[in-house]
Each structure stands twice: as C-alpha cells, then as structure tokens.
C-alpha cells in the first residue's frame, strides 16, 4: 500500500471524529501529528484502521515543548505509521493510551519517570526503572546529576579532572 493511499484512508477514518490530520514524513515513514486534545480519539480510530501493535512511546525534549511519539504497526496489512503530539513543557499532560493499547502501560510509566510528563488516566503511575526516591527527570536536557545518592558519591574520578571528558 502506497503512502498516499494510506493517507487517504486515515483521513477518511479521522473525518468521523472531526480531526484534520497534519502530515509529516520521518525518513520514508508516514507521520501523523495531532493535537493532544484529540490524541485518544485518533488512537482509537487508528486501531480501527488496523494499527493494533504499539511499538514504543518516546518523549523528545524540544525545549519549550515535549513531543510524544508513538510508532505503530499493522501486522495484517503490513503498514507503518508514527503518531505524534506535542505538549508544553510547563503543563506536560498527555492522555494515557493504556485503554487503547495495553502495551502503552509500561512505556508510559518509563517515559513519565524519565521526563517528568504526566499521562492522565494511567492506571498504575509508579516508577518503573528508577528507584522510588530518585529526584529529577534524567532524560530532560537540563538535568543535573546529584553529587551524592544515598550516601554514595557520584563523582567521576578519571575523566573530568584531567580535562579529557569524553562527553564533549
């Protein structure tokens, strides 16, 4: 199925919920950008088109906004699509898609703790990877590491002292 035909079909599916799709391209894949308010309705409509497999949830820190990315796949029809939405950094609230794709459960938990975004309506908003007493959101661009964690020094002894940090 060509990208144009897929575009047309999705536009048709979304017309019932009055959403005007904004199209983009991500290195050859079709990307659909929607407003956060209509995210859940669009997700349900896309599932109806055949996108039953949610592959990941990725948040991208873009300064003033957080972009949330949902790569999707349809096994029966062999289609790929990337669903995206953007939320402001000051109020990073996104509708949880656990009801639509159960796979979103863990992915959203992970992204929420790493970026400090909130997935509204998530059934189990606990930490997943980081310890419960972790402070800060490490994958944000402005994250600063603490000097001590639970009495253990987080200092790097080798690289930065000698001015040969590998990170620049």
């Amino acid at each position: 199925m060509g990208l144009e035909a897929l575009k047309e079909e999705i536009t048709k599916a979304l017309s019932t919920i009055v959403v005007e799709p904004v199209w983009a391209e991500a290195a050859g894949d079709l990307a659909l950008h929607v407003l956060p308010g209509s995210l859940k309705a669009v997700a349900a409509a896309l599932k109806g088109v055949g996108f039953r497999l949610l592959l990941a949830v990725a948040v991208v820190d873009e300064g003033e906004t957080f972009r949330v990315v949902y790569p999707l796949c349809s096994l029966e029809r062999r289609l790929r699509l990337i669903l995206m939405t953007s939320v402001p950094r000051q109020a990073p609230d996104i509708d949880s898609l656990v009801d639509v794709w159960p796979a979103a459960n863990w992915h959203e938990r992970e992204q929420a703790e790493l970026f400090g975004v909130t997935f509204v309506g998530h059934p189990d908003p606990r930490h997943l990877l980081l310890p419960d007493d972790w402070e800060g959101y490490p994958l944000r661009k402005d994250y600063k590491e603490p000097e001590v964690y639970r009495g253990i020094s987080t200092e790097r002894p080798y690289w930065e002292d000698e001015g040969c940090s590998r990170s620049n």
Partner: protein
Amino acid sequence: MHYTLRNKLPSTALFTTVDAVLNWGRLSSLWYLLFGTACCAIELMQTGGPRADLDRFGAVFRSSPRQSDLLIVAGTVTYKMASRIKRLYEQMADPKYVISMGSCSNCGGLFDLGYSVLRGIDKVIPVDVYVPGCPPRPEALTQGLLVLQEKIRKQRYLAREA
C-alpha cells in the same frame, strides 16, 4: 574465631603449618555465587562451561549466598542494585572474597557517562581482585581466580603477629 583460639593458647605455640592447611582448604574450594549483573555474566557462564571449566580450580557455583565463599561481581552495578549487592555480601559467611569482574564494576567503565551507574563496586564492598576487560575473557577471569588463590595462600590466620 582465630582471635579467641589464639588467646587461649600458650605464647610459645606456632601454627604456621595449620595456617597452610587451612589456606589450602580455602583456596581449593572457592564456591562462587551464581550471580551476574550484566554482560560479564555471559562470560562468567562460559568460564564455568565446558571449555574454560572453572571447576578445575575447585570453583563451582552455588545459588545461595549462604553457601558461597566468593562473590564475583560480574557487570555493571547501578545505584538501585548497589544496596542489594551489599546485602548479598553481608549474607555470605566468613571467610569471603570478592572478585570485581570487568570495567563496569571496577570503575564504572563505559557507563561512567551515565547518571545511574555506580562508579566502582569498591565504593560499596571491599574487593580482593580486580579483573580488567569489557568483558574479560574466560582466561582473564581464570587468572583472576588464580591470583585470588595466591592471595589466600599467603594469608595468616593463626600465626602470631610479630
């Protein structure tokens, strides 16, 4: 145990040969804990496997820290894991030894750029032998075990301090 024994004995007694026997027993049956945190665990597995065959040196794996003499910290240790490793170490019965296997547990290794990785297991528990490599080859780990055995051979438990 040896302090109390030493205090009860006359000051002229010598125990060096008993030391040697004890050390020989300890170094020839270093049972290690079946525990790997990351990549090095696979090489640890291969070392215990048919080709490198760590059994030759009396080292076999045990699944419980209570039955183990040796903790091989095989792989990256994160802050979340550090307290658990400390607890595992505390659960082991004396005498106990630690081999730090691989760059990550030696000093953080590749992952010292990260925010969640402990920069060296020696910040949490004492280490006897450091084995470099990312990951160390089975030969290197075997060498590490032999070095530890040499270290144990020179230990003095009962001999009088000068």
